[in-house]
């Protein structure tokens, strides 16, 4: 790992520690009338100066967590504390101020403003915060020189490569020297040479006085992170054990929507009711399935939480398979039919 670049060092912190503490963070939103809960009681502790990696596939709640950390999204429950600031206690005005002073953002796909030059893009957060134009431009120039973009100050984003745009985006995130830098998929859309430069830069930025939180599904970043948080619950198939018989009485719930599970079920006798919780009323019945039908396969196979609740409609007997056993069983069935 190269030595940190002195120019990019954060300003000395007045707070003794900018540690991050997240407790019981729950976010729920509606999608197509159904409640989605990407974060449910999430907890995290990270120390000042760390590079924290939020790892997981699309839809696992990485960006939702970044939005909460950035003071953009209000969680349903839980608290986020950074240094002396409890972000979740702030009002709208407090959030705006928090975003202007405490947080730097590096957005997915760079999200530079296309009409502004690289210099003006970097100066934008300072201008928004009321910094005099000359001072804002001077600071923006310094930052761009530090990320090796001093030669492209007057170029608009359309004239820059992906890696160059990402470096401008990082410089913009650092404009007001924030103690918390949030980066969303910073290596997406970059080739490996550009990605390496960006990763090195982000690594250099994480040091006492600045916490860097990166959301990504790119596990190449894992070795250089101080802390890795896997947001998707990896269900190991060998935990599932051999196929087993499960018996439920009518009305008993087998699994709930939003929960994680590694088993796929085949109905031997009786009926199962598949329900989807609605955000605006009683659960919606999707289907009632009977002997020979199987259900609950997509969550374990794709790494998603359960998308519906399964409840015994009558007394029921099921066989529960691990994902691999289930795939083997299905292939064997298909072979017999074919």
């Amino acid at each position: 790992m190269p030595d940190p670049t002195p120019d990019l060092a954060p300003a000395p912190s007045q707070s003794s520690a900018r540690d991050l503490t997240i407790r019981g963070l729950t976010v729920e939103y509606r999608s197509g009338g159904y409640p989605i809960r990407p974060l449910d009681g999430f907890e995290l502790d990270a120390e000042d100066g760390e590079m924290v990696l939020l790892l997981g596939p699309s839809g696992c709640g990485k960006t939702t967590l970044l939005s909460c950390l950035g003071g953009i999204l209000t969680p349903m429950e839980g608290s986020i504390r950074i240094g002396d600031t409890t972000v979740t206690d702030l009002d709208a005005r407090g959030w705006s101020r928090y975003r202007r002073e405490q947080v730097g953002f590096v957005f997915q796909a760079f999200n530079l403003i296309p009409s502004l030059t690289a210099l003006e893009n970097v100066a934008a957060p300072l201008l928004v915060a009321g910094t005099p134009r000359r001072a804002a431009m001077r600071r923006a120039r310094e930052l761009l020189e530090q990320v090796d973009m001093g030669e492209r100050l007057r170029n608009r984003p359309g004239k820059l490569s992906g890696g160059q745009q990402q470096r401008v985006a990082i410089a913009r995130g650092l404009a007001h020297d924030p103690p918390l830098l949030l980066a969303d998929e910073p290596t997406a859309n970059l080739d490996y040479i550009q990605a390496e430069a960006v990763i090195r830069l982000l690594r250099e930025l994480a040091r006492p006085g600045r916490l860097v939180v990166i959301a990504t599904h790119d596990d190449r970043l894992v070795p250089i992170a101080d802390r890795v948080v896997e947001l998707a619950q990896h269900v190991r198939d060998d935990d599932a054990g051999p196929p087993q018989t499960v018996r439920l009485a009518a009305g008993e719930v087998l699994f709930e929507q939003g929960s994680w599970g590694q088993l796929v079920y085949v109905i031997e006798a009786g009926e199962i009711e598949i329900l989807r919780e609605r955000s605006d009323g009683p659960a919606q019945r999707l289907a009632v399935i009977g002997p020979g039908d199987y259900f609950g396969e997509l969550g374990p196979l794709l790494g998603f939480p359960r998308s519906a609740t399964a409840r015994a409609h009558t007394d029921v007997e099921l066989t529960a398979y691990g994902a691999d056993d289930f795939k083997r069983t299905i292939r064997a069935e298909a072979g017999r039919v074919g």
Partner: protein
Amino acid sequence: MWLLTARDLQHRALRFGMAIFGTALLFAMVILVGGVAAGFSSSATGTVNAMNEGTWILPEGASGAFTSYAAFDAGLADEVVADDEVVPLLIMRGVATSEAAEAVASADEGDLSSAEATQDIVLVGHVAAGLGGPPVDVGRAASGLDEVVASSAAELPIGSSVWVGERDLEVVGTADGMTMFAGTPLLFVDLEVARDIAVEGRPAATALLTSGTVSSLPDGLVAIAATAVADDALRLIEDAVGTIDIINVLLWIVAASVIGAVVYLSALDRLRDFAVLKAIGASTRSLLVGLALQATIVAVVAAVLAIGLAELLVPVFPLHVAIDPGTFIRLPLLAVGVGLLASLGGLRRAVGVDPAAAFSGPGG
């Protein structure tokens, strides 16, 4: 925010340029169409006042001097008691025939084939050098029974012949702006000539004029002011003026739509930018100011351009276009108001942007 606004205008210069040009054309049409309507009014008022700013005496029941042609005995003028001279006037609408301009040009070049041009006119018979006569701008006043002074709108050159009824008259002078009924030219002849053409030479009049105060009138006559005569003449073109007013309103609506559409499209294009700006701490108010500023700039630049365009186009119009100088102040102010109103849709979109959208990728 000024920087963002200016840069976005530069970035979308072609789109904003086209919007400004289109809006400027519409505003120019607003100015010109309004000027045409104002021209109708000013021509009627100017013509009546040029003939007699004082009192007009008409038969009872006549709606006006130019709209009802009720001839009466001109001898009644002697019974009118006024502190100034009372003179008879004979007005009638008719048709004048002249050699077409192109036929005159052809004849000059040796082609003797002739063509005739016919146009509607208002014939005015007045006492020589008395009230009711025209202010001659080119040539001289008519002094004989075969001479006529024509409104310059009739486009009859001095020295040319014009036939009204059975009379062949020579144009000896022209008077600017003497029109009625949205551009119908007036031809001024001696009262005797008008009587020959209109009432078979009888000593009749359709109006009596005096610049003094009338203290007594014979039965069957009433006195009205020049302004009432002009207003009555305008009554005939009320529908035309009303139609022009409606067109004017429609033009404003189209102009507002153009500004609104371009600002709305700009807002749509910039939703991600707004989300980013909000995420980095920009207030909703500052975003609104930026968009409103764009609408204002488009409207003001279009208004200024429109004023120049209108000035260029006025001479091309065959009708008198009377542009009120106040228009040049009112138009930009109104344009700003309309521009801001029209940009409400775009402003609403900017207000509604969720800063969390800054986190979405290219597709989301």
